Structure formats: C-alpha cells, structure tokens
C-alpha cells in the first residue's frame, strides 16, 4: 500500500503545485516531479510487509512489490525522456496534468496488480486506461493524436464492457468477487468458460493480443512518443502480470481451458504481430507491432503455470522495460529534435549520432533476443518455461517468429548503419535527462541478463499454480 499512498501524495503535491505556481515557473514542475518520483522509486526498494488489507481486496507479496518497482523504474525513465517534450512551449500549460495523469494511471496499475477482488481489479484497470486516452490525445496540434485518443477510449470501453460481462458470469457462477473465494468454486463448465473467455478478451485487449490488438498500432502511432512508450511498456507489463496472477490464483482449475487458449493466442499474436511489423515505416507503429509480437512471447511464460512461468514473465517484463524504453528513448529524442519518426529517416544515423545509434542497436538486439544483451535471457527463459510444460512445437514456432522479428528489427539497423543518404539527421545533442535515461536503459540491458542475482531474486518471490 505504501507505493500507492506515495503516488497519491505525489499526485496531490503536483496538483497543489499546479495551483500555486505561476506561469513562468511551470517548467520547474518537470524537474521536481521527476526528482520526487525518483525518490518514490527508491522508496519502493525499501523492505515492504506482505499481506492483505481491506479484507482481502488488497494484497501484496514479494512479487507484486517487485513488479511495482519495475513499473516505477520504467515510469521514471519515461519521465526523464519526456523532459524535452514537456519543455516545449505548447505543452507548458499541461505539464502538471501530464504528471498527474501518468501517476494516477500508474496508481491504477498498482491497484490492479495488488487487487484481491475483481472489483478492485476492474477499477484499477479503468484507472489505468481512461486517463491514458486523454494522454494519447495530448498533442494539441496533431489530428493523429486526437484520433489515437478516441480510438483508445471507444475500443477500450467495448473491451471493458466485454470483460465485465465475463466477470458477471464468473460472479454468477461462483458467488463472489474475491479471488480467494472464487478459486475453489472454479470448474470447467460452459458458463464459466464463457465468462472466462470474455474476461480474457478484455485482458487480451490490454495486453494487445491478437485478435484483440487492433487498437494498438493506431494508438501508438498517434500518441505522443512518451505516452506511447508508457503505454507499450508500463501498461502492457502491468496488464500481463495481472493477467498472470488472476490465471494462476483464480482460474487455476480452468488450466485445461486457458492453456490451449493461450497457445492459440500466442501463435496468432506472434505471427500477426510480426507480419504487420515487417511492413511498417513509422517507428512508433513499427514498435507497436513489435510490442504485440513481444506480448505473444510473454504468453509462453504465462502458459507454463508454474514458478518458472511467473519468474520468466516478470523477468522478461523487467528486461522489456529497459529494452523498449531504450529504443523509445532514442525515437523520442530524435522525434523531439527533428520531428522525424520514420525508419527511413534514420539513414546514416550512425555517422551523425553514433551514441544514439548504438543505444538503439542494443535495444533492437535486445528486443530481437540476441546475446549478450538481456533480451536473449528474457526470451530464452520464456522459451524454457513453455518447453517445461512440454510445448516444444510452440517453442519452435515462437523461435521461428523471433527469427522473422529479427528481420524487421534489423531494418532500422540497416537504415542507421548501412544505408547511405545525403540528408541524414543532423548531429544533435540530447538533453541531460534523456542521456541519464538512456544510460539507465543500457545498464539495464547489459546487467539484467548477466546478473543472475536479479533473476534469482525474482525467482525467490515467484509463485505457481
């Protein structure tokens, strides 16, 4: 609960700051918010009691704490990367709103992760969705941004409707909304399956699993870069983890349903995500499909339904946070400096901005799962967990998909390092916060893989069916 409280206080502080600062001082909010949030992040690593609150509505254990810390870390990086963008003139009057919205949605995710009943979970989910729609429409002068906002809010409304519909049947058949009470009542019968599948559809929407993913690309493309990175990393990570908890802790008895279900979804997600990603030129859209494909890999971990699965999913999400944010960090720096967001704009980027290119390279390699960067470990352990459940064919197809994904991850690499152009992106200097964020990401990309202690730490907190 501490984390949520800190976030709530932070939100209030920012609200107050908004009220008490003059127009000229607004930009100071940026720094202060980031610093305060950094403090909150650090505080997250302090020892934390486990247990239940509110009669089981709120529960925390090691794993949720780990997960929240991962999210905090990610949000911190996102904040650092947003500096340039927020300091623009047209955003000046919305700085505190930005922080407020991000922090409240993060709070929503934290509640979602820690939820002990479906009501809390649902409220957390909505808290983590509705304000993001506003964030997606943040860009004032971009019709794409507005489009992204409306697409997100309408489709997510539908999806949460379907999710609720499913939940209503779960409630109707088990008589409770508390996880602990539902779990023993769960059995394989048509109505529960129906409810469960509708619930899954709603969650799949959040994690953007095929075929519930259609909003993803459009929203990612239209939203401001930093919001996109927030959406693709933090929001997706939180939703995946929540989904995992609920599957393991509530629907354990439905294993026979959800393993094949996730099998199907994983196949579809990886394949479709990859097929679409291949053709993209817009970087954000490209990363959207890439993140869809990545979600497919996450399912491989969830599928395993054991400690290994939960460990590898959380571990993967951790790596994914650093990895994807490294890529997004570069995209956002370039986008803010030059306004260019297409892969084809990155030609000869290495010759003008070697450091950014290398960061991007590491990020892309990590996304593709190439050693020695962390993505390799993350993916390998996901495959390991799927294999431990005996899904060798799935693993094979997944790795083939990873190979296809390599094809498109190498496209930006090719643009940056190989292709020549007369008009490359000019050399520019990134701001200090961006650099700090990228260094953090790079450190993460390199260390998380090799330092097995991190994996072991997560493993110690893991849980299975």
């Amino acid at each position: 609960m501490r984390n949520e409280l800190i976030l709530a206080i932070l939100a209030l502080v920012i609200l107050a700051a908004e009220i008490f600062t003059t127009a000229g001082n607004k930009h100071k909010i940026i720094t202060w918010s980031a610093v305060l949030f950094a403090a909150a992040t650090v505080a997250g690593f302090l020892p934390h009691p486990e247990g239940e609150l509110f009669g089981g509505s709120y529960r925390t254990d090691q794993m949720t704490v780990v997960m929240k810390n991962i999210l905090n870390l990610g949000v911190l990086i996102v904040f650092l990367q947003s500096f340039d963008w927020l300091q623009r003139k047209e955003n000046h009057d919305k700085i505190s709103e930005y922080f407020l919205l991000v922090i409240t949605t993060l709070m929503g995710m934290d509640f979602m992760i820690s939820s002990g009943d479906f009501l809390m979970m649902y409220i957390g989910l909505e808290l983590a969705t509705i304000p993001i729609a506003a964030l997606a429409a943040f860009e004032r002068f971009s019709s794409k941004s507005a489009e992204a906002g409306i697409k997100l809010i309408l489709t997510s409304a539908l999806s949460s409707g379907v999710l609720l519909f499913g939940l209503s049947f779960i409630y109707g058949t088990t008589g409770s909304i508390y996880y602990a009470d539902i779990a023993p009542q769960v059995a394989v019968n048509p109505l529960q399956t129906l409810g469960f599948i509708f619930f899954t559809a709603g969650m799949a929407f959040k994690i953007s699993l095929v075929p519930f993913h259609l909003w993803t690309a459009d929203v990612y493309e239209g939203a401001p870069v930093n919001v996109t990175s927030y959406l693709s990393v933090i929001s997706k990570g939180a939703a995946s983890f929540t989904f995992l908890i609920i599957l393991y802790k509530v629907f354990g008895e439905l294993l026979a349903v959800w393993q094949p279900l996730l099998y199907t979804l994983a196949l579809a997600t990886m394949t479709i995500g990859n097929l679409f990603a291949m053709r993209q030129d817009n970087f954000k859209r490209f990363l959207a499909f890439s993140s869809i494909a990545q979600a497919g890999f996450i399912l491989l971990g969830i599928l395993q339904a054991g400690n290994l699965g939960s460990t590898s999913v959380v571990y993967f999400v951790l790596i994914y946070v650093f990895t994807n944010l490294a890529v997004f960090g570069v995209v956002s720096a370039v986008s803010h400096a030059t306004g260019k967001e297409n892969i084809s704009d990155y030609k000869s980027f290495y010759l003008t901005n070697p450091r950014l290119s290398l960061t991007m390279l590491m990020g892309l390699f990590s996304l593709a799962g190439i050693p020695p960067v962390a993505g390799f470990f993350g993916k390998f352990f996901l495959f390991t967990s799927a294999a431990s459940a005996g899904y060798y064919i799935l693993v094979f197809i997944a790795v083939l998909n990873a190979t296809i994904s390599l094809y498109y991850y190498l496209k930006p690499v090719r643009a940056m390092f190989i292709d020549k152009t007369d008009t490359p992106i000019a050399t520019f200097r990134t701001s200090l916060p961006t650099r700090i964020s990228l260094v953090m990401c790079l450190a993460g990309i390199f260390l998380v893989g090799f330092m097995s202690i991190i994996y072991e730490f997560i493993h110690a907190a893991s849980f299975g069916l």
Partner: protein
Amino acid sequence: MNILNLFVIIPVVTMAAILFTKDLRGARLVSAVGMGLQLIAAVVLIFSFFALRKAGDSAEFLFYSDVTWFESLNIHYAIGVDSIAVWMIGLASVVVFAGIFASWQMEYLSREFFISLILLATGVFGFFISLDLFTMFLFYEVAVIPMYLLIGIWGSGPKEYSAMKLTLMLMGGSALLIVGLLGLYFGSAQAGEVTFNLLELSRINFPVTMQRFFFPFLFVGFGILGALFPLHTWSPDGHASAPTAVSMLHAGVLMKLGGYGCFRVAMFLLPEAANEMAWIFLILTTISVVYGAFGAIWQKDLKYINAYSSVSHCGLVLFALLMMNQTAMDGAIIQMISHGLMTALFFALIGMIYSRTHTRNINEMGGLMKVMPFLAVAYMIAGFASLGLPGLSGFVAEMTVFIGSFQHQDLFHRVITIIATLSIVITAVYILRVVGKILLGELQNPEHQKLGDALWFEKLSLVLLILPIVAMGTLPLFLSNTILDALKPIVERLTAMI
C-alpha cells in the same frame, strides 16, 4: 585462474581498448596485440593441455571449472576442453589473428569493424570452451549476429540481401537448436535435477522416442551452420558479400561450430537417434559433397567458387561424423581444422587479389602469377590443400575420412563413401580451372601490369595460415592421435547403442 577464461576476457578487453583508440592505426594495432595475445594464449593452452595429458590426467575434459550462474535453473558457466576443443581454439586463434592482418587497411569505420570482428571471435572461443549448453548456445548466437553488421556495412555486392539471408537462416537454425536444447534440458530431469551440463547429460540415456523427436532439431540446427544441403544457400551469398576477414572467419571458423555442435551435442547426447537417422543425413551430406563441388565448377566469382567448395568440404565433415567410427570422425575433425585454415587462406587471398584488380570474375583476370607471384603461389598452395595434395592438410583429412568411412560394415556406407570420393576429382577440376584462368596464362588485362605483390602484413597473414597447413600435412600424427583419443568416449557411446 583457469586459462580458458582468457579466451573470453582477452577479446572483451581488446574490444574495450579499441573504444579508446582514435583511428585505424590505433584500432588495428590494439586488435593485433589483443589477438596476438590470444594466439599466444592458445599456444600456451595447447602446450599445457598436452603436458597435463602426458602427466597422466585422463579426465575427459581438462581445465574444467564450473560456476553456478542461474541457480534456480541450474544453469552454469562450465568450461573445459578436450583435445578437439583445444585444436579448434588453436585454429580459431590463427584465423582471427590472420584476419586482423587481412583487414589492415580497413579505412571505413575501422574501430567498429575491429570491434565487431573481435566480438565474432569471442563467440567462437566461448563456444569451444563451453561445456554448459546454455553458455554454448549463448556464445553461438554471439558469434552469429555481428555477421549482419560486418557484411552489411563493410561488404560488397548485394550485401544487405546476403547479410539478411545469412542472419535469418542461421537464426532459423538456432530456432531448431533452442527446441533441441530445451528438450535435452528437460529430458535430463529423469536423472534428477534438470541440467544443461554436457558431462552430466552425457551420462543419461534418454528414451528413444524422445531422442527421435529432438535429434533432427539439434542436428539440423547445427547443420545449417555447417552448410547442410539444402540449407546451405546462405553460404555462397554470405561469403561472396562479406569483407575479407569476415569471410575468413566465417568460413574458416564459424562454420566449424556447426560440425562441432553436431557431434558434440546432437550425436553425442542422442546416440540412438543418431544411429537410427544417420542414413537420412548421410544422403544429404553426400549430396552436399558432390553437389557443392559440381556447383563450384560453373561459378565465375572467386568467392562463389570458394563458397561452394566450402559446402562440399563442410559436407564432408558432417558426412564423416555421421559414419560414427573413430577414424572417420577423426578425419572429420582434421577436415574441420584443415578446411578452416585453407578456406581462410583462400578468402584472404581473394580479398587481396580483389583489392588490387577490383574484380572477382575469373574471366576478367589472367596471368597474375607474373605480377603478384607471392599471392599466386599462396593461392596455389591453398588450391593444392583444397584438392587434397599430400604434404598439405587437406590430404590427411580427406584420407582419414575416406578410410574411416569405408571401414563401415554396411555396403550402403561404403557405396556412398565411393560417391563422396568423386569430389576429390571434381575439386581438382574447379581448382585448376581457377588457377589456370587467373594465375596462369597470359596477362589478360594490361591494367594489371601495374599491380603490386603482397605487402608485409598481407604476407604475414598468409604465412600464418600456410604454416599450419603445411605442418598438418607433413606431420599429422600427433594431431590425429590426440583427436582419436578424445573421440574415444564419444564413439564408445555412439556404438554402444547399436
């Protein structure tokens, strides 16, 4: 400290040091020093290894050390070498060192080039010292991926296409590998804890049904890197487009990872399936051997000729491995080393010739012997090694393979051995065709009159490669016997199942 660690540490330190250099001169100097140290370390390793052996240390793997890495998954950083690995490391060190000199004048993005090259080398060395399949796989992938950049940035011709094809096909291979490795890993649960450790895995007799399922994954997975027909097509394009040092390293060393993995992992750990399915792959490799050689005859681009020749020669490696007898496998390993050296020599020479004539089309050259005698003679030596002339390494390798393969009890194996021997004639045809066209005869292009012979660093690079070829060719006994010894447990395990 375990000397084997040096083979990972030295390259990493070298790469770091290159970062602090300013230009080509610094980068190549640092690389040369680093890889020189590596070569020295390899020599020291060879000597100390055989000193230990002589002192009676008969453990299967020496310099064994084992550090737990991911405890809960029981993944270790386990290293150790037997004499095969030692020789492979020796091979890799020589080729890498020669490769540095072959790229002495790499002007464009030189620091990046050397870093990528050494990263590639790191993967190779790591692969050979690993005894834990996880780290082995990790290093394998490390070795594969810098290829994309190396070919894509510094290559020539349709480099993007080739680089992409090569990368994707090899990664496709690793897709198969992952499945196979995980199968082994979870299969080992029957003996207690799951493990990736090669030594522990080798003590387990996996159920046959399981072996049948996973063997093709592992064998084909490694086989792709070893240019197994019909999955070899990355090789001609890849080699043709790659810069000199990369072709050298790739054909010379990286392709050996495939063969090495095939017997060290696929066949060694899954012996029954290997015995059962060998015939399928034997047919494929026989095709490789003959087909690659015939394919080479028609080519006009020097690198393509050599790439197809590699398909043929590497096919012979897999062919011999699948014969599953000590002699043939011994031949396979000698062939790996021999092919590694000579194909590196070939590619180095092709690069050097290309840098002078700016063409690789054999029809556009002729009579180069007159203007660049050193390169020409070196090319002929490489050619002779390739066609199996006694006194050079190729002969020793091929004869051991053929003799060993022909010792097989089944008529089928003997018949395909005879088919495979055809390749030595075909090889002679294409090698002599090339030599005749480009080196001998009248000087075709008057422009070429002005070209110069090899420079000192080029000579150094070539001599470094020629020396071991000659040494292996003239005094093969020690090499061969040590490999035979190391193969003993593997062959015993393979034949115990029949």
